[in-house]
């Protein structure tokens, strides 16, 4: 008897625009002391099926159409809200994708941690705190005493996810549901958290249901893999079977999308398009504390026609460096030279002249597009602003751009929210290309995207770079991604440039410990 047995679960959403089947006849199971991974891209119904079991899908609009979910012999779907509530947090616990938003920012860590204990076990505060501290220690929080009285914002993302894990495990549940627990984390942190989950699972003998879009991530830890697409299970089995012999085309696609391989080294003549000398960008927080040295004395050259990969963890200053080059943030010192022109001293009109030669692609395609502008308007704006096309030719120019970034022309009058993340990123790329720039800063352009989409966008970028003869600064925390697209790699750590070299050099003979730890953290190394 499996720990959790889901049979023919169907969930739909009833909205103004009709009924949308989110989960369609899905069956899977989690054995005791095993990890089952559900893989699928966003919208495939993988999260909804788990939330539905626990009564966490808001109704309306959600509606469970049928199926059973037997947990320790009881059908969760047949339980009342009160009975379910007694199971939630005691027998079945959850951790979520974004540790930044899943902890209550207004409550102390300790109070949030002991809540399940006092609630389900009726423990007094004192003993509950003892237990919580022990657990914090176990998940690798260094100073549990201090952590108990700290607020979530005082922790980094990785630490918060550890807290979330501790909170989930505090009642010693039988089943842990982990919904994309590492997706929002940097690569190195991701590796640590994965390791932690695997360790705890063996140590505590719990079943884990691991939800992810990334096959590579689960490849190391899953005992069983379920692949979902568009609300249906398309394939399931042992990881080895899946990796070695994927049956369904979608699984094959997923596998193919794992970033691997290395860009064929182009011969780039060292003709510096951009020179950065001793660049410093410091932020002075209000209140007059010491400045944050986001970029501290960085010197770098970017050659014409090359893709320079800039690697670092969040907070390393890599995004600030990109924005500094584009003059989107005020720089504190140093020089930026673009084709012999000193950029840092330009203002107003002369700066605007340069703007269209350098563009940026942002990380979050949800935030970087004006939600109240159609694709047409978004693309037309730079074209008209810089007088690149005549009014009469505008439609034609936009059509070409849409074609180039692989968007159906029919979408031209839609709003950003009507698109998926990948499509949005295509719009953003289109906007960046519209001014026919020579240089593009791509700031984590794929890290918010599902793996399969990520691969498509990377391909697109690679193609466009060639076609337009672009020079690109490609910023990412993910070395696997960088390896695929970059000619050279620069590594940033705490605002400083620590290593720089050709992609092959960096991967094969990393000079710094830090670079080596980054390389070791690449997930799915054994599967690739």
């Amino acid at each position, binding site marked *: 008897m499996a720990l959790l047995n889901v049979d023919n679960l169907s969930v739909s959403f009833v909205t103004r625009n009709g009924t949308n089947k989110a989960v369609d006849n899905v069956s899977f199971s989690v054995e005791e002391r095993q990890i089952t991974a559900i893989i699928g891209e966003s919208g495939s119904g993988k999260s909804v099926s788990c939330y539905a079991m626990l009564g966490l899908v808001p109704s309306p609009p959600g509606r469970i159409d049928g199926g059973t979910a037997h947990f320790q012999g009881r059908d969760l779907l047949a339980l009342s809200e009160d009975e379910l*509530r007694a199971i939630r947090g005691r027998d079945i616990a959850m951790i979520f994708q974004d540790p930044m*938003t899943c902890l209550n920012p*207004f409550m102390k860590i300790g109070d949030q941690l002991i*809540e399940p204990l006092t609630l389900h076990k009726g423990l007094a505060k004192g003993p509950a705190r003892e237990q919580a501290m022990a657990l914090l220690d176990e998940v690798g929080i260094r100073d549990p005493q201090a952590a108990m009285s700290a*607020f979530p*914002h005082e922790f980094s993302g990785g630490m918060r996810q550890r807290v979330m894990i501790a*909170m989930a495990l505090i009642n010693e549940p039988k089943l842990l549901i982990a919904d994309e627990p590492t997706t929002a984390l940097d690569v190195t942190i991701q590796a640590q958290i994965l390791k932690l989950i695997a360790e705890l699972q063996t140590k505590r003998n719990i079943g884990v249901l691991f939800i992810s879009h990334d096959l590579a991530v689960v490849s190391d830890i899953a005992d069983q893999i379920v692949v979902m697409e568009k609300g249906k299970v398309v394939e399931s089995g042992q990881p080895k079977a899946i990796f070695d012999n994927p049956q369904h085309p979608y699984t094959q696609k997923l596998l193919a999308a794992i970033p691997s391989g290395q860009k064929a080294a182009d011969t780039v003549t060292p003709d510096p398009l951009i020179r950065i000398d001793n660049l410093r960008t410091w932020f002075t927080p209000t209140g*007059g504390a010491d400045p944050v040295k986001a970029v501290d004395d960085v010197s770098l050259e970017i050659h014409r026609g090359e893709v320079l990969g800039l690697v670092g963890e969040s907070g390393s200053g890599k995004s600030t460096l990109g924005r500094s080059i584009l003059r989107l943030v005020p720089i504190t010192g140093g020089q930026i030279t673009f084709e012999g022109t000193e950029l840092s001293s330009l203002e107003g009109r002369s700066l605007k002249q340069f703007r269209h030669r350098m563009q940026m692609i942002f990380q979050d395609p949800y935030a970087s597009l004006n939600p109240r502008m159609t694709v047409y308007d978004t693309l037309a704006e730079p074209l008209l602003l810089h007088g690149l096309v005549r009014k009469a030719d505008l439609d034609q120019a936009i059509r070409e751009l849409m074609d180039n970034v692989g968007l159906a022309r029919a979408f031209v009058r839609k709003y950003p929210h009507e698109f998926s993340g990948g499509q949005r990123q295509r719009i953003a790329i289109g906007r960046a290309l519209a001014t026919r720039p020579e240089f593009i800063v791509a700031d984590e352009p794929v890290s918010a995207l599902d793996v399969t989409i990520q691969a498509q966008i990377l391909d697109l970028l690679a193609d466009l770079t060639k076609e337009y003869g672009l020079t690109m600064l490609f910023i990412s925390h993910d070395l696997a991604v960088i390896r695929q697209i970059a000619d050279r790699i620069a590594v940033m750590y705490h605002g400083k440039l620590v290593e720089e070299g050709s992609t092959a050099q960096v991967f094969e003979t990393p000079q710094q410990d830090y670079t080596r730890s980054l390389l070791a953290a690449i997930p799915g190394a054994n599967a690739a």
Partner: protein
Amino acid sequence: MLRFMFIRILQALPVIFVVITATFFLVRSAPGGPFDQEKIVIPEVKKALEAQYRLDLPLHEQYFAYLGDLAQGDLGPSFKYPGRSVNEILFSGLPVTAELGLYALIIALCIGVTAGVFASLRPNTAQDYVPMSLAMIGICMPSFLLGPLLVLVFGIWLDWLPITGWGDIPGDKILPAVTLGSAYAAYIARLSRAGMLEILSQDYIRTARAKGLPEWRVVTQHALRGGLIPVIAFLGPAFAGLLAGSFVVETIFQIPGLGRFYVQAAFNRDYTMILGTTVFLSSLIVFFNLVSDIIAAWLNPRLRHQFQGGSS
């Protein structure tokens, strides 16, 4: 924290100074003087009066003399009430108005938060529409209408509550506080509904539910705190507004508060009184904005951290 307060107060000082200066010259350029009466005042008498109140000096001398007095905390004598200083009148009315404002605010908070939270739990249902519609009417219902209406219903027809006075008869503070608080209750209801809706869609509410917390605990322990931050931020300006806007309620209910003096001073051209109340109220506005910012920040641990000034 102290540094933050210091900066805020420092920023407020020029504002108050400009307000004083502008008010000083504005009131003196308004037509009609403090001693104009329906029956004409003999010119010699008027001159004597003006001399007694320094109004015979050149304007700039009056101004600097006033600033000098102000620096010593002296708001000058009232023109309308000979024998009373503006300080005395302000401090006689302040406790009453402050008490009235406090009760009004408490009532506004109780009604407003309850209604707002209630509405936010089932958005776009009758449970949402009914309290929010009432809130809308509450916002627009002027107190010159609501006050007499409440008196008529509860004071005269039902004969449940006293209709005037302040602390003379038990229960006489209820109607004025309700009248004054209702508009604010309505605003608070809207604010808390919006705040709660925002918070209830946050991920950490899902976390709380996943822990198996009952819904009421999710709302009270996890959602309320964040959801009410906009309300807290509103309280400071609201309280200052209550103090300044209590005139109508004070008149209807015969309450010896500050609001009546504030408004009548303008009608009476009681220069020192206008200035005094303006200085006083603008300082209060600054003060209460500061307090509510501090409270809001205190409720938000992230900001609290900033205030503590640790460079961690």
